[in-house]
């Protein structure tokens, strides 16, 4: 039981969306540097739970990454 508690975040509100303070309205699929931290080694999109991105921006990220994948700027699977 004690182990389970330690794995949980102490305060779930502490993680903030990195896009929200900048008021990002659109994430560009050509912008590799901004998308890079949200893709793991295998080319998958990182989960919101780990990155702390809000749902609105996660959806934007998803479209951007999928577009970049189609244009062969990002890998589907490494």
């Amino acid at each position, binding site marked *: 039981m004690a182990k389970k508690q330690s794995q949980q975040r102490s305060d779930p509100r502490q993680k903030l969306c990195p896009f929200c303070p900048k008021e990002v309205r*659109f994430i*560009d699929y050509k*912008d590799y540097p901004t998308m890079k931290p949200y893709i793991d080694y295998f080319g998958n999109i990182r989960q919101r739970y780990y990155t702390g991105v809000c749902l609105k921006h996660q959806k934007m990220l998803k479209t951007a990454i999928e577009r970049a994948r*189609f*244009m*062969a700027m*990002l890998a*589907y699977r490494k």
Partner: protein
Amino acid sequence: MLRVDFVRESPMSTPVLTSAIEDNRVYEIAVLYPYPMQQKEEQQLLKSIEQIFDDVGAKQVAKDAWGRRGLAYPVGGLREGNYVILYYDMAPEKVKDVEQQLKILKGILRHMIITVPKNYPFIAYAKAFEDWQVQRVASVEREEREREEKLKQQVVEKAKRQTKRATKKADATSTTPVRPVESLDVQIDKIISDDSLNL
């Protein structure tokens, strides 16, 4: 670092793409074509792409030629390709025609037409990407230098500690054995000179 933060009030230095006519919209067309290509062929291809849009009556707003870029996965057996990003101001009904024409066009690996959000600031990603790469290389180098300096400091500290320990040991060895030897001699003398033992 040139990250697209898309702040609500974008800086005035970046040109904003907006359509001149009310019903028209700005579209972004990305085209991927193979890299090892002769200059004549390349020019012809680009001309034919632009011709498609001219026929429809679209107006070019901006253009960003990225040039040679490595691909994340092989497309048509190629590992490298050329990218061109075009911005056109055109009527929404014409997109279908353009899409069809681009599908038919030979010598293109991939193409994509997307709408651009309102007041989209035009950023030349070709340059931005290069800048980012240069910065990343610089940062990697800096990290390596810092790591090396740290290692050097660690080595120096270790050497200092070792010398300290060695001096301490030397002190200990030089001081301690003298006393017992003396005391032993004295004891032996005492024992020898002791008459009560009858040696």
